[in-house]
């Protein structure tokens, strides 16, 4: 049997996790180097796949083996434009997080190597989630990602880590189990129509009655809304992100939460197009509330990591809005947003983590005047912050603009109100920067060390990408476009025609 490319990408970090665990405890440094090596290999492999995908399309990467015949479950992997973007994001963020968190696991409950091994395991499962083309496989991996994340939060976080870990797990399980009910329902319908199969390709052919489709949609959507997270199911995220190490928070917000929005595109829109259209008004309002409420709460936070967590809730509101606006611009923007948000939030969390580890406190009030003693740190923080508030010229701006423009063409009022979110974003980032970095140097800050080489090296790729994609996003957009078009086709919507037609003269 030939081992497929995607299987290899999935296995590599998994093997890496085992190898890392096998290194003797005394050689902590070696275990970390091994983990980093495996994550870099995975990144290289993913890069090869991305290039191949760009040139030859998805067909080379499809794998399909029967897994559990009685369940109609397959071990089936494949890529589309949305999937490849997120696989690349996962493979990119993992080595960065490993390098940036080099010493963060020292104060953990368990050995440092287990921290690194759990991260690799999480990488493997996440790649599987984004590549799965079988609903059963997706569900299994979706739930399985909870285990490494649970131990990462609970084992290596702050004082309230156990509480935060359990809260995270229970919220996610609540969503996951309701989705399980829908997954079971899909099987039953599939079995009634012939041989049961969980392959996406087979499921899209199912003829669902209106009520069934809506109920099944709700099961899936609820799970993804908890995961994303959307108001009012968001309260687990600030707790988890504040208690976890910065690296864990990056993986949580940057990758794991994307499963929610990714699932909305691939499963909610893909499997239940009519129900998705039916739910649009409610979902858009919830997304709008997420945008504004997340931003308002972010402004009021006194804890740096909680603040960043709330900004993410606001950003996820934008992503969901773009998805359910059901325009090609909105969908493309959302997918791009997922990638860019991963970059900018990772940068913000990691720099904030550098800062917090120096002072030993996450309270904003404990800081002041950092830019005078640690200019490089303050500078990168400002850069990451500006990208998070979507400054034009940096990559998140383009995606946010596309989301708003795409939403505006169909839902004007919602888009207009959502624009307020951009203003609020400027407030929460700049106020935080002002309190932390400017003003007189506070006690305990005087001897703050500036970033060292490892720390700069770890986040440099993020900053380069943020600028690069801010100026020239075309390569990523080109990859996303076809997937968005096929999703639009599946839902059966076309972009609303512009009210002012483009005339010959304006072209």
């Amino acid at each position, binding site marked *: 049997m030939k081992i497929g490319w995607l299987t290899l990408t999935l296995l590599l970090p998994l093997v890496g996790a085992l190898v890392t665990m096998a290194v003797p405890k005394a050689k902590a440094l070696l275990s970390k180097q091994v983990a980093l090596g495996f994550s870099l290999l995975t990144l290289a492999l993913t890069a090869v796949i991305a290039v191949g995908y760009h040139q030859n399309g998805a067909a080379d990467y499809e794998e399909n083996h029967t897994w*559990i015949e009685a*369940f109609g479950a397959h071990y089936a992997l494949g890529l589309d434009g949305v999937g490849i973007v997120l696989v690349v994001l996962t493979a990119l963020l993992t080595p960065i997080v490993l390098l940036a968190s080099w010493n963060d696991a020292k104060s953990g409950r368990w050995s440092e190597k287990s921290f690194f091994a759990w991260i690799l395991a999480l990488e493997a499962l996440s790649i599987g989630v984004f590549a799965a083309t079988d609903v059963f496989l997706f569900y*299994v991996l979706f*739930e399985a990602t909870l*285990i490494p994340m649970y131990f990462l939060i609970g084992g290596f976080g702050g004082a309230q880590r156990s509480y935060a*870990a359990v809260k995270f797990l229970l919220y996610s399980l609540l969503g996951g*189990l309701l989705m*399980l009910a829908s997954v079971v329902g899909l099987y*039953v319908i599939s079995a*009634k129509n012939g041989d049961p199969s969980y392959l996406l390709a087979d499921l899209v052919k199912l003829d669902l009655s209106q009520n069934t489709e809506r109920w099944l949609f709700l099961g899936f959507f609820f799970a993804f809304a908890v995961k994303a997270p959307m108001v009012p199911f968001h309260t687990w995220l600030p707790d988890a992100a504040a208690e976890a190490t910065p690296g864990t928070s990056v993986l949580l917000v940057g990758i794991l939460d994307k499963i929610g929005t990714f699932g909305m595109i691939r499963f909610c829109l893909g499997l239940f197009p009519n129900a998705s259209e039916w739910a649009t008004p409610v979902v858009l309002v919830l997304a709008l509330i997420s945008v504004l409420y997340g931003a308002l709460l972010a402004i009021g936070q006194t804890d740096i990591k909680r603040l960043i967590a709330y900004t993410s809730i606001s950003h996820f509101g934008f992503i969901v809005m773009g998805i359910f606006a059901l325009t090609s611009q909105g969908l493309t923007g959302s997918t791009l947003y997922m990638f860019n948000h991963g970059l900018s939030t990772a940068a913000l969390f990691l720099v904030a983590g550098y800062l917090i580890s120096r002072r030993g406190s996450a309270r904003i009030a404990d800081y002041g005047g950092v830019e005078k003693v640690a200019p490089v740190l303050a500078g990168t923080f400002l850069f990451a912050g500006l990208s998070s508030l979507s400054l034009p010229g940096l990559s998140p701006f383009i995606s946010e603009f596309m989301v708003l423009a795409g939403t505006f063409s169909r839902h004007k009022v919602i888009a207009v109100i959502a624009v307020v979110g951009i203003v609020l974003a400027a407030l929460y980032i700049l106020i935080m920067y002002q309190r932390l970095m400017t003003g007189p140097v506070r006690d305990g800050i005087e001897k703050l060390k500036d970033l060292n080489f490892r720390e700069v090296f770890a986040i440099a790729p993020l900053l380069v990408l943020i600028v690069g994609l801010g100026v020239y996003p075309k390569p990523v957009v080109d990859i996303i476009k076809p997937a968005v078009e096929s999703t639009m086709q599946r839902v059966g919507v076309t972009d609303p025609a512009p009210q002012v037609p483009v005339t010959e003269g304006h072209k």
Partner: protein
Amino acid sequence: MSAVLMTQVLPLADFVAPKIEYNELAPLLVVFGAACVGVLAEAFLPRQLRHVAQVALALVGLVVAAVLTVLLMVDDKKLIAAQGAISVDGPALFTWITLLTLTVISVLLFAERSVDGGLSAFAGQAAAVPGSEAEREGTAAKVEHTEVFPLTLFAVGGMMLFASANDLLIMFVALEVFSLPLYLLCGLARRRRLISQEAAMKYFLLGAFASAFLLYGIALLYGYAGTMSLGGISDALATKTSGDAMLLAGTGLIAVGLLFKVGAVPFHSWTPDVYQGAPTPVTGFMAACTKIAAFIGLMRVFYVALGGSRWDWAPMMWIVAILTMVVGSIVALTQTDVKRMLAYSSIAHAGFLLTAFVGLSQAGSGVTNGITSTQAVLFYLVCYAFPTIGAFALVTLVRDAGGEATHLSRWAGLGKKSPLLAGIFAFFLLGFAGIPLTAGFTGKWAVFTAAWTGGAWPLVVVAVLCSLVAAFFYVRVIVLMFFSDLPADAPDVALPGWQTTTAVALGLAATVVLGVVPGPVLALASRAGEFIR
């Protein structure tokens, strides 16, 4: 008609010896035979030989019976044997082989002597007053009750018979054959004997009540149908138009008796006390094997005999299933003893099983290629039973001066003391919670699917919500083991003998294999097909 026949005196020439299918019944006969030989061995062998001899005899008997069962399965036997008393069909054979395998593991655990200073988990002299001089002398002389092995054989023989009984009377006899040895086994703990004896007493009294209900129900059904055989009752249901009161009352009373054994709410109250008091290996045996036998018995009676009146009893079972899931998972939240927690968890699992039972998804009932209820239940029972025995085996290892340290607070920080034990236990708990890639998940998936296929989707929704509550109390234990600090007077972790190691390893293997590649066992369960009549 039969009543008329009985009053006539039969001439000798008309007497026909009952036809017994010895080949097909061989597994049962071997187990019961080994049990009888065990009783004799107990009487005639010198004391120092008994332990070895009894363990060997029990294992040989069980393995031979298992081999014979496998041969029957290969032949795909399906017939009603012993003049309509026993049905040897697919589900019965599947249950037999599962029960026999689990009992082999249990016997190994019963024989384990290395975790408690060279003594088994059973009292030296059950008759000695707890705390008395006689008890101390017996312990010093390492006296043992080796009767536990024949008792176990009788119990498992009874369970096998119960799961294959095609006649309500045989079913009742089988119920008593497996219950009586269990009552005794429950009271034989070496440590905390008063709790153990209390458990045995409670189990006996409540079990006797339940048997009485069952018997009364059987009498009423006989009154309705004029026959005890399951097929006969089914025929009566199809043809008779009168006597509904007796049918309904009989159905209800039989349900009480069977649901008691299953451990379903509101007939569950014995479970936590008995699970806590019984010697832990016996608890494992009961939790796994009794549940299997009782469930298959329940399904056989309600599917084969009372399938025609399903619209009468299905609403009742819906309520029982919901109550069982809700009460089992919510009350488990408040438990502070690991054995009681596992007891409530077993109640919740009974609830999940009941969803498939109520779903009534049967081959040919509008389902083309889906999973049937019988297949789902058989599969779930396997997925649940092996980890359960493994989990209880682990419980025997965490000990302090007073024996097993079962209070949950004593398990705090266990992950530091023994990462391996805590890790495996955590894995079992994740399995019970139904996290994917464990047997618990595939099992849950199968029963939920069967329930939904039969139209019981509201039950599935209740079940997933209860799964969440259940996950909380399982995770609580994981938090306790891994995220709490080790207290100064933490209990020791005993070094297991090969017997306990085997039990744990098999539980672990089952959890992983059935979670990742459940195909073969599912296929086997599917091959078992439906109950025959």
